[in-house]
């Protein structure tokens, strides 16, 4: 459908015979293309689009593309387009094809305001647009980098896990040793308890026997003493006492003699 529209535009253009300039043709085609865009119902082409050119076409005075100057250069040199412009303007003014009325003043005003605005804020707006695009690209790049980083950390963790699996044997050996030691300690403790218990019982028996013998001994001594004391008759008692006195006297004598 766009091609059909362009075809009709071409025909009307040829019939009208206006606008020998290149820009008019281009403008018409462009605008037709753009106005017919809402009529498209499907996506245009599914292939990847070619990248946008880095810089726009070179224009002089913001309006006339550089190609026009290049186009006229071989025939008329550098001043060619300017002469053409001046001549055209003077022609329009002198023949009153373009009448100077109040709108001219208004046009001058609004054009100056527009040009002032564009000159002053143009680069800022361009930088802003570039910043927006940069942010978009940066966000996507950040996502990509995040994903890469996450995957790398995952890889490292995986490697660490593998290393851990290798070291698992040592872990098991150590655990096994620990458990064996625990068992051993437990066994030894219980052995000690058993030994202590047995010793306690044996000590008890020994103590019992000692006690018994002691008691027997005491009893025997007591009985012997009792019998001996009983067997000492009164007469024997007297005799012994008289002997003791004689001994004492002899001793005293010997003592006195010694002193």
């Amino acid at each position, binding site marked *: 459908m766009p091609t059909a529209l362009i075809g009709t535009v071409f025909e009307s253009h040829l019939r009208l015979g206006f606008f020998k300039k290149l820009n008019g043709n281009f403008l018409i085609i462009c605008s037709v293309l753009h106005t017919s865009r809402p009529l498209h119902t499907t996506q245009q082409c599914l292939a990847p689009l070619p990248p946008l050119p880095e810089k726009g076409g070179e224009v002089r005075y913001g309006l006339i593309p550089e190609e026009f100057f290049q186009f006229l250069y071989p025939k008329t040199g550098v001043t060619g387009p300017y002469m053409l412009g001046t001549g055209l303007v003077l022609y329009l003014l002198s023949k009153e094809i373009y009448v100077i009325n109040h709108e*001219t003043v208004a046009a001058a005003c609004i054009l100056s305001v527009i040009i002032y605005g564009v000159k002053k804020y143009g680069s800022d707006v361009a930088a802003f647009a570039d910043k927006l695009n940069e942010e978009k690209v940066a966000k996507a790049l950040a996502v990509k980098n995040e994903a890469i980083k996450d995957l790398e950390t995952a890889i490292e963790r995986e490697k660490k896990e593998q290393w851990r699996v290798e070291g698992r044997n040592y872990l098991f050996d150590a655990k096994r040793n620990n458990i064996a030691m625990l068992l051993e300690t437990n066994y030894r403790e219980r052995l000690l308890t058993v030994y202590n218990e047995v010793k306690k019982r044996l000590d008890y028996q020994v103590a019992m026997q000692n006690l018994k013998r002691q008691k027997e001994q005491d009893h025997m001594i007591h009985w012997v003493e009792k019998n001996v004391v009983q067997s000492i008759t009164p007469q024997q008692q007297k005799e012994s006492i008289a002997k003791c006195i004689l001994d004492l006297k002899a001793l005293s004598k010997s003592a006195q003699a010694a002193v």
Partner: protein
Amino acid sequence: LILLSMLFPALLFPTPNNRWITNRLSTIQLWSLHSITKQLMTPLNKKGHKWALILTSLTTLLLTINLLGLLPYTFTPTTQLSMNMALAFPLWLATLLTGLRNQPSISLGHLLPEGTPTPLIPALIMIETTSLLIRPLALGVRLTANLTAGHLLIQLISTAITALLPIMPTVSILTTSILFLLTILEVAVAMIQAYVFVLLLSLYLQENI
């Protein structure tokens, strides 16, 4: 010439063409569209988001018409009362009817501000009803009047300058400076009017959605 001028505005708004990163013009337009939509839609609840397309496109339409009307030898449609009323009246009526249809008591309740003393109620309801009914008229006439006044001033002052130029150049230079200031004002007014129109519509929507 007519063909050229009819097709020119289409160049201003290149439609997005499935590129992820577009050229500067498309990026800026996309960004401004997004910010306009966001600002209009944040006060509204989910149901109000149905209005997003029409309000945003209305904003863009008014902005373009107003700004393009400042160029010489152009006609601004929004200076005509017929067009502005045609825009304002149906949209306002739509907000009113959605309110009355979905939540009739609440939207009728908007007629009475809270905390009014009881004796004042009848009078206040009359006043609120009149203010409600006058809204579409106000919307349309506001836009028309502002733009017409601006354009008229520009035309008149530029005529004065043209007439004074051969007689008293100094006066004409002074008047030119006035015209400069006026033009800056007009640019601002053009943008603001579009904004205000849509803002008020969204406000009426908030009450009634």
